[in-house]
Each structure stands twice: as structure tokens, then as C-alpha cells.
């Protein structure tokens, strides 16, 4: 294994350890996901409803409780992954900075965060899909899982950005919850009249919701919606990338040193004796 790959693997392993040690997030995954979906199954009437898929104009027919489970599952995975990524980023911010200043290459640290985000989102989305599958048969379960995943990674990236920016833990948690609740409440295809579809289309999990509804109750594959979700993810990821670079950069030059080469600005770790000046 090349040294830079090895550093990436080590950083990823440690990030995953950190996630698993976050007992509260793990408990949320184990309990909150099935709870939300089961409440949808048993508390909502299973009357057939027809609704229009905004993305295509197609009219779909679903049972009310199944449709509720989809938006409930989206709510659960976005909250959990958003919270988990926020909480890890928030609590290890200064530590990451110390590691980076000591010479841990920033790209590897950052990629490790991305890898853990992807893994966590995949696990939670598969789990939520499996729980729904236990109650009914979504037409396209794989696409359903992919749709949940796309929303989860988006919120995870938002969580990383918030974890780098906010000053107090509660602020970040409140923001994650608020964004997810508003986002999904407005998209409820039955309750919301879809009157202002222009606004609804701008919500952060619009693509995932459309694609997940299509996966549940039709045979259409809405690649364009997954594309919209991808754009949201990339935007959020770029924001968190910028925030992370800002947070871990060395004050010496204001530049982010590439520590593997012992760049002169990376003072704490310059491998070869060399003289540096800053003014």
C-alpha cells in the first residue's frame, strides 16, 4: 500500500471508530428508523391515495401509510446522518486541526470523512429500505435505497459544514432538525398542495423525494431527480470542504501546506531543517 493510501485508510478507520463510539447516533439508527417507519405503517390509514409526481406530472397511486413511510424514512435518514456527521465534525474540530498541523495530510483527512459519510449513509439507507420492505413491496427497492442514500449524503455534507461553522453544539443540531423538518413537511405530496412547485423544487431533498416516490409506486427511474440531488450534495460538500480547509489551515502563510513534502510553511513538521520567514 502506498503511504498516502495507507494514511487515508488509517484516517478512515479512525473516523469510523469515532462514529461507532457515538452511542446516541447508533441508537438512533437502530431505534428511530424502524420506529418512524412502523408508526407510518400502523398509525396512518392505508387508504389508497393518488398524487401527482411533480417531477413528471405522472399520477401515482399509493397507500397513504406507505407514502408516509417514504417521507418518514427520508426524514429519519437525513436527520441521523446529518446529526452524526455534525456531531463528529463539531467535537473533533480542534483535534483535526492539531493532527493537520502535525503533518497529517489534509486531503487524506478530508477523504476519510467523505468515505465515512458514504459508508454511514449507505448502511442507514439500506436499513431503512429493508424495514419498509418488511411491510410492503416497493416497486424498485434498489432505487428506493439509492434515493434515500442521496438525501442522506446531502445532509451529511450539510452536517460537516455546520459542524465547522457553528459555535455551539445545540445550534448545529437545531439547524439540522429544522432544515430536515421544513424540507420534508413541505414536500408531503398529499398534505402539501404543491401550489408553489417552484419553491418545492428548491428544497434540499426534492430530488430524493421524487425519486423515492417513483421507486415506491412506479417503474420510472427519475435520473434527472437524482441528478438534482447530486447537485445539492456537491454544493454542500464544496461548502464543507472550504470550511474544513479554513479551519485546519496554518496561520503561518494562510496557505494550506502540503505536509508530505514538508512545505516550509508547515512549520511543526518541516522534515528537513530549513529556515522560514513570515512577516
Amino acid at each position, binding site marked *: 500500500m502506498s*503511504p498516502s493510501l*495507507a*494514511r487515508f485508510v*488509517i*484516517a478512515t478507520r*479512525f473516523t469510523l*471508530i*469515532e462514529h461507532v*463510539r*457515538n452511542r446516541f447516533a447508533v441508537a438512533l439508527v437502530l431505534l428511530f428508523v424502524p420506529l418512524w417507519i412502523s408508526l407510518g405503517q400502523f398509525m396512518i390509514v392505508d387508504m389508497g391515495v393518488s398524487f401527482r409526481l411533480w417531477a413528471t406530472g405522472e399520477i401515482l397511486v399509493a397507500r397513504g401509510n406507505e407514502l408516509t413511510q417514504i417521507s418518514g424514512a427520508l426524514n429519519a435518514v437525513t436527520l441521523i446522518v446529518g446529526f452524526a456527521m455534525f456531531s463528529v465534525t463539531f*467535537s*473533533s474540530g*480542534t*483535534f483535526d486541526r*492539531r*493532527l493537520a*498541523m*502535525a*503533518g*497529517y495530510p489534509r486531503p487524506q483527512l478530508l477523504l476519510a470523512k467523505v468515505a465515512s459519510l458514504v459508508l454511514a449513509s449507505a448502511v442507514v439507507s439500506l436499513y431503512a429500505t429493508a424495514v419498509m420492505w418488511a411491510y410492503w413491496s416497493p416497486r424498485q427497492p434498489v432505487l428506493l435505497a439509492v434515493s434515500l442514500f442521496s438525501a442522506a449524503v446531502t445532509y451529511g455534507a450539510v452536517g460537516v459544514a455546520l459542524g465547522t461553522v457553528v459555535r455551539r453544539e445545540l445550534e448545529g443540531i437545531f439547524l439540522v432538525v429544522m432544515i430536515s423538518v421544513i424540507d420534508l413537511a413541505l414536500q408531503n405530496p398529499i398534505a402539501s398542495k404543491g401550489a408553489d412547485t417552484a419553491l418545492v423544487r428548491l428544497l434540499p431533498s426534492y430530488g430524493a423525494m421524487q425519486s423515492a416516490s417513483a421507486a415506491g409506486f412506479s417503474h420510472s427511474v427519475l435520473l434527472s431527480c437524482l441528478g438534482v440531488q447530486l447537485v445539492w450534495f456537491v454544493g454542500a460538500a464544496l461548502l464543507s470542504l472550504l470550511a474544513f480547509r479554513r479551519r485546519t489551515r*496554518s*496561520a*503561518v502563510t*494562510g496557505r494550506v501546506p502540503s505536509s508530505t513534502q514538508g512545505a516550509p*510553511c508547515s*512549520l*511543526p*513538521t*518541516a*522534515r528537513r*531543517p*530549513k*529556515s*522560514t*520567514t*513570515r*512577516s
Partner: protein
Amino acid sequence: MGALMKVAGIHHAYGGRAVLRGVDMELPRGSLVGIVGENGAGKSTLLKILAGELRPDRGVVRHEGRFGYCPQQVILNDSFTVRQHLELFRTAYSLPDLRRAEEIMEALNFREYAGERVGALSGGTRQKLNLTLALIHDPDVLLLDEPYQGFDWETYVRFWQLAVQLRTSAQSVLVVSHLAYDVDRLDVLWRLKEGVLCAGAGLAS
């Protein structure tokens, strides 16, 4: 031998409050230097600037060689064990092994905690690890901010033995503290007052 670190004309202010007003100093090779000063005098601010954590408003810092920085505020990750911290910093510093880390843990007497999660350690033990992380790559210059806070007497004594050992092997150690007990162990003692360094002879309290 020349100085391992040269500092000239460092100024720094937080908002309107000027904390450093022209700090000049040199850290010769193989020296043990102390900086004392009251709470809030600006010692940690100066050390952050020397370590590249903070950019000064004005002034020049020249470094030679590698250095290690032990911050006043303990910076660890509560989810990881002591050994996991060492593993991460071994990777950060690109060290082939943790032999030096083992020696330091032995010297500071906390080897038995290697497998413990840091969140469950006592304050003094956390500080031992905080300090160890700054030392394991055998830096040429050590910047230590209140390194013995929370240490028991025996560890305190062992810390100074370690510092003297480092000096003997031509490394330079800069210790910052608000206490000036151990002036006789130091080669140079500075006092940070009103934003400048002045000679601090005869400060033993």
C-alpha cells in the same frame, strides 16, 4: 551553533486589546528557556504565534528544524484510546515506530493507560498524553504551554528530568508558565509583561 528559532518584533492584538507589543527573542540550540507572566499576560498568544496556530499582526518568526507544540488547552479526541492517539500522530509525523513514545510514556509514568479511552482518563493523565503528542517525533524545538499543569509531584520532577535530557541532546525547550518555581533549572528566564519580554532574574517565588 546558531539559534534554532529567532523572533523579532511580534505584535498582536485581539480586537482593540494589544496583547503583544514587540516581542524579540532567540532560542539557542540545546537550551532550556522559560517565559513567565501573569494570567492574561499573553504567553499562550505568543506560543500560538510561534507554533503557527495564529498569525501575528506584525513581526517575524524564523524556525529551523522540526518542532513540537503542546497547547495549554488539552487537545485530544475523547473517542480514542491513548494508543490510538499515538498511532494517529505516528502517521502524522511519518514515524517508523513508536519507540520514542514508549520511552516518554514510561518516563511520565502512564504506560498502564495505553488501552484506555481518553474520555475516561484523569485530568493529569490527559495532560501527560497532550504533552507526549508534542514529543514523540523528537523535535528540535519544543514549545510547551503550561506543560506540567495538573501533574503530581513525582511526574513534575520526571518532567524536568525529561526536559534536561532533551537539552543534553541539543534540542531546545521553551516552557511557558505562570509559575516561576524552577528558575535554577533554566538557562534563560524571560518575563512577559505589558506585551514585551524582559529579563526575569530573581523571580523565584
